[in-house]
């Protein structure tokens, strides 16, 4: 279970990006986080695995506090949090297999990592996961020779190699064509239920959020303004989240005024 309490993130002296956010994710539900650019979705996900340092608040994964972890404690916590990125972030010049096995880097010794001598159990797991998502035949291909959808599958498998307790996906389909992005979404959905894994997905595509996830969280200006099932996510919610959006550069400095939103 993921439990976020009163999470605040402020970059420098600017207006906080996250303003006291609370979120609970139980069991193996697929949660999509929607919101305009600059609403703080990415920052939220990155606070969870501490790619971004939260300013204050608490993040607990299965009752382990993640904020304030340092050094090897932090690395051990990160092993249990898988992440999938918009730009895939594969190691382009390494093979698909090396990329998949890099998901085990938190578990193996430096020498094993350097010489690619991963334990047999890791290699078995890698092959079975790659077969599950249909990329096993690419094992020895270089990652940059794959298509976008295939590369995102590699990234998903890399994250699953970590044996994660939660999977974070930061706009996993934004760089993909519509058909491929549906495939990736349904893959995430079915993997979540197969492995009883909670999944948090940042997503721009509201239709896909409705179709593939169990719960939708709407964010605006660093706050959660909608939380419910896809069937409750109606036009009003959509307007509240996206309506009257000024460009993020403009509203960064001044506080958002509700009248402007209503008039737009």
């Amino acid at each position, binding site marked *: 279970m993921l439990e976020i309490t009163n999470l605040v993130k402020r970059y420098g002296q600017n207006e906080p990006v996250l303003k006291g956010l609370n979120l609970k994710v139980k069991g193996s539900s697929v949660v999509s986080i929607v919101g305009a650019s600059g609403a703080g979705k990415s920052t939220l996900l990155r606070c969870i*695995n501490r*790619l971004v340092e939260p300013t204050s608040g608490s993040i607990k994964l299965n009752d382990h506090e993640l904020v304030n972890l340092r050094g*090897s404690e932090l*690395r*051990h*916590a*990160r*092993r249990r*949090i*898988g*992440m999938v*990125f918009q*730009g895939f*972030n*594969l*190691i*382009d*010049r*390494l093979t698909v297999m*090396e990329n998949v096995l*890099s*998901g*085990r*880097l*938190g578990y193996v010794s*430096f020498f094993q*990592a*350097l010489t690619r001598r991963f334990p047999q159990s890791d290699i078995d797991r890698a092959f079975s996961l790659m077969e599950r998502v249909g990329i096993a035949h690419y094992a020895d291909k270089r990652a940059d020779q794959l298509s976008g959808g295939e590369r995102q599958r590699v*990234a998903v498998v*890399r*994250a699953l190699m*970590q044996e994660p307790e939660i999977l974070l996906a930061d706009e996993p389909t934004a760089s993909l064509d519509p058909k491929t992005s549906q495939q990736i979404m349904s893959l995430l959905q079915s993997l979540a239920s197969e492995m009883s894994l909670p999944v948090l997905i940042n997503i721009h595509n509201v239709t896909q959020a409705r179709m593939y996830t169990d719960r939708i969280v709407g964010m605006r200006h660093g706050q959660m303004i909608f939380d419910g099932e896809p069937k409750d996510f109606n036009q009003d919610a959509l307007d509240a989240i996206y309506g009257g959006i000024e460009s993020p550069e403009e509203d960064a400095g001044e506080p958002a005024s509700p009248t402007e939103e209503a008039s737009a």
Partner: protein
Amino acid sequence: MTSGRTASDAKSGRVWKKPPFIANPWIRYGLAVIVLAYLYWAFSTLPFDWQRIAEGLPRAGKIFGGAFPPSFERAELLWTGFKESFQIAFLATLLGVLLSVPIAVMAARNVAPLPVYLLGRTLIIVSRSFHPVIVAILFVAAVGFGPMAGILTLTLYSIGFVAKLLAEEIEEIDWGQVEAMRSVGAGYMKILVYGVFPQIMPRQIGLSMYQLDSNLRASAVVGIVGAGGIGGTLMNAFGRYDYDFAFAILLMIIAIILVSEGLSGWVRKKVW
């Protein structure tokens, strides 16, 4: 279509000129005036002794005359000299490239903390600040005549060049791959091996090949001040007015540089 064309033609007559490179006209023309004035001053104060230049020309002609045809009679000596130059260049490249990797990591702002970064940059600046010939003179004084001084000189020379360019390459890597490695829980060294080194690998190989090339050339030069290799042989040949032998050496140097240039170009194209 034709009517659209005439409509746009009717609007012609508007002039467009490329905006000047330096916007301020005072600075633009001022700079030109300063450069011209400096050139005039430099040429009028430097002593150009036309008579000595005139006397030198036939002497140069005599040297070139003596150089023809090049003599490969002392092939033994030629071979020993080149073998030593090769060894110097090879070892120095290997050592220099190996040492330049950690120094480049130290000197890349995005992967090194500030104090380490400053240390790394200092190391690079120190090894870059002197021409190899000056460094060779120092090392010959320190460790004596011979290839040892040459190896040390060119190692330092290689570090200065390779580490600097490699550090810049590290600063320009795709940070997403590093973030991905951080997010799986990898430590610093594992992040370097997976997230950083694969990205700079082609550049590293290209630089190493280029540096081997460059060290071959430089090893001939540092030999002149006594740091071993073909340079010493060349210097002796000049000293004893064996211009034909010296010319043979020069021809060999050109041939070897050509071969290594071609080879390194081919290797760099193969790696991407």
